[in-house]
């Protein structure tokens, strides 16, 4: 993802502090969370190569103390000997759908400050907030083994509030079946739309890949955020334990020290397969550690958004 590293480097520790899930988790409403994430993220971008990205020139206005000097139009100044700053305006012709997995496995919280569902909700809210700032029409779809909730995409003022309210009230659902709702949505979403899938994808990979490819095949741009808890990534357990599946009665008694290597191998294989097959289908895929800041996700979105221009 171009510019990711430099963008990360550009974000000061002060700014990233507001992207830390542990800080976000302590904030009150979803709107506040989303605004904190996005504003923090964007303030980090001020010195990044993404400056002015995806926005259009709107007008000039007289410079006022406090304005960013980088927005000063030196050509106008040269011609008129007066200080004017450029005013930008985002495009508004994109339809974005946030597909949030609310299955029971998303409620898992191991070593992070937020559960995957909470993290996914904040991510969805942040994306919605960011999309709203860019005047994109934004919609929200919740699903587990089926679609459990849907807010159609809209760019109206006040629609963001509805999305944030829905995200705030979200509750874990039943067991996962990511492929099935994706197939349902493939025909329903517009051709020039963008689908952001937020899920742990701990499901049958064949079914998941088929569903996502179906979506992509119908002309929808797809970004997939696979959310994983640190415990799912590192498997740091100690002592013999009986691991019970949160979505079923399945259980395995094992000594973590003995099975860790095998598990990590399986997990890496799963992620590798998603990455390989989804990228091959033109789908952006990114695994997010729920203990890490959200800037990765936002950058990934902006990157995908820029490619659509």
């Amino acid at each position, binding site marked *: 993802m171009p510019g990711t590293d430099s963008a990360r480097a550009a974000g000061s520790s002060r700014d990233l502090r507001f992207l830390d899930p542990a800080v976000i988790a302590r904030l009150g409403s979803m709107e506040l969370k989303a605004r904190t994430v996005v504003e923090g993220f964007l303030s980090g971008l001020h010195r990044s190569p993404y400056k002015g990205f995806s926005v259009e020139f709107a007008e000039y206005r007289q410079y006022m103390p406090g304005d960013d000097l980088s927005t000063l139009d030196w050509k106008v100044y040269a011609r008129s000997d007066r200080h004017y700053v450029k005013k930008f305006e985002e495009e508004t012709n994109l339809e974005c759908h946030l597909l949030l997995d609310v299955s029971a496995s998303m409620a898992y919280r191991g070593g992070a400050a937020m559960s995957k569902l909470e993290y996914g909700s904040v991510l969805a809210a942040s994306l919605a907030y960011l999309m709203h700032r860019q005047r994109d029409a934004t919609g929200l779809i919740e699903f587990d083994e089926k679609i459990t909730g849907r807010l159609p995409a809209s760019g109206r003022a006040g629609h963001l509030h509805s999305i944030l309210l829905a995200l705030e009230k979200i509750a874990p659902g039943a067991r996962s079946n990511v492929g099935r709702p994706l197939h349902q949505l493939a025909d329903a979403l517009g051709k020039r739309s963008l689908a952001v899938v937020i899920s742990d994808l701990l499901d049958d990979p064949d079914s998941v890949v088929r569903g996502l490819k179906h979506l992509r095949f119908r002309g929808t741009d797809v970004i997939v955020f696979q959310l994983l808890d640190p415990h799912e990534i590192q498997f740091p357990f100690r002592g013999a334990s009986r691991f019970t*599946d949160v979505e079923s009665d399945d259980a395995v008694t094992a000594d973590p020290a*003995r099975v860790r290597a095998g*598990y990590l191998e399986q997990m890496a294989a799963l992620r590798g397969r998603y990455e390989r097959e989804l990228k091959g289908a033109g789908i952006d895929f990114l695994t997010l550690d729920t203990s890490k800041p959200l800037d990765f996700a936002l950058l990934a979105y902006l990157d995908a958004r820029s490619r659509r221009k």
Partner: protein
Amino acid sequence: MSFLTPLYLFGAALIALPVILHLLRRDVAPPVPFTAVSLLRKSPVDRSRRHRLRDLILLAARICALLLLAASFARPYHAAAPATTRTTIVAIDRSFSMGAPSRFERARILARQAIDQAGGDRVGVIAFDDRADLVARPGPAGEARAALAGITPGFGGTRYAAAFDKATELLADEDHARLVVVTDLQRSGFDESGAVLPERIELSVLDAGAQATNLSVSNATIDRRRVTATVRNYGGTPRTADVRATIDDRQAPARQVTIPANDALDVTFDAAADATRATLSVDDADGYAADNQRFAITESRTLPRVLIVGGGPGAASGFYLTRALQADAEEGADFDVRSVTGSAFAAMTADQLHEQSVVALLSTHGIDRRAGEPLRTFLKRGGGLFVAVAPDVDAAVLSALLDWQPPLLPRDIRAPGMLAATDLRHPVFRPFDAVAANFGQVLVERAWHIDAGSAWRVVARFTDGAPALVERIGPEARILLFTSDVDRRWNDFPLHPAFVPFAQEVVRYLGAHPPAVSAYLVGDVPAGVAPSPGIVRAGERTLAVNVDPRESRVDRVTPAEFQQLVTRSSAETRPRAERLAQQVESQQNYWRYGLLLMLATLVVEAFVGSR
């Protein structure tokens, strides 16, 4: 399978430990909610079933190891089937009373019959008198029968306890056994206690015959130019017999005497004053031959050796003491006196000092620290030390030599008065009795005044109360200290008649040793001396060895009385069973295999546990 120490089997209760741990281990696998359980299934995990199997194998291995450990400590053994054949021991009396005419032949016949009647039993033979010897180990009857031919009557006395002890030892492993005693049933064989036989051993007694009469020389002495034989008649009628004496290889004329029934008579022969040995005999063809002769010697007289330690060469110290000790008694001097200088004494070793009975220390001149260790060793070995204070006796040297703590700190006193025996019961003064007052004639001009304290016991004092003769208190040392001198420099004691007996009594007391024994019975002879009567040399000593006079008696017990006089023991059964079990277990050594197996189990456990 039996166990030698079954209490250790309680240790098997330790198997509860791994069982509990196993159960606890199950409890310590708590449920952990997780999302990617399907990935755990796909990875090469320890499936719970496999895990359970491994745990069960580990549990079984640990239980096995503990069980094997407990069983090994319990010393398992496989009890052998009891023997089907019985053992018979034939004990034949070989005391000198069995030497009566035709007595032993009859005993052999009876023993042979006993062997024949033993049937299929294994048969062993022992011969006994004061002690019992195994003649034929329990085995085929033929060997036992052949062994009988080699037994002859000896010179010992009868002691049935010796036969019973030997038979018990031989039959220790037998549940049922038989002891046949072939004897002349002398009552004297029960004189000493200890005739005990386990109940499991069947006892039979075969009478080899009775003796109606017997003459014996029951005692022989050499004393005051006379040799005396005590001749005893054990018969019910008076007997007339010739008594003979051979004194120092010279045959004395025989004397015919008549001894009353069941009585004794002293028969005396004249002898030279220096007679040292005599053989006395009585003619008795009907009685026991071994007791017809008795041997006597004069007790060897070893003079106590006294070492007088004087001053330097040419010093006159010790003159009076030497003369006093060498004063002639009726049979010559009572002491072997030798004088040495202080430096010569310092050069003597502990072994050289050990040859002395008493050391009389009259001067410390020329004595250095070297003498300390040998002198202390000499005292520990029972030697005596007499110290007479003189101008050349240094208290500091004396204290250092004898390691006295606190050291002796005397002060000179002048004219302490006359000598007075304080403790007339002391062995030194006891012989003086009423004449002890003669010490009051001794005028003492100078002496040491020592503080007796708790280290010394005052035996005599001067008339001013100062201690004159003190004895060191202690378990090891026999030390007398005379606080004035014995060389007429500080007093006139050597000129008084009491000096000689005083000196001799002091040395006799300090050098007292038990008298040497020179007369032995056949059954008690010291090692290296043949158990047969006679006058024999044992190293530098001459010994008279005689038969036990108790064996000369002819009074008997009946076979029924014999049985009653034997104490039958049943308490021996259990230790015997344990002993048997111990023997079997020590032969089988199953515990070693148990421990090896346990180690193998632990290796398996470690192998399974590491997987």
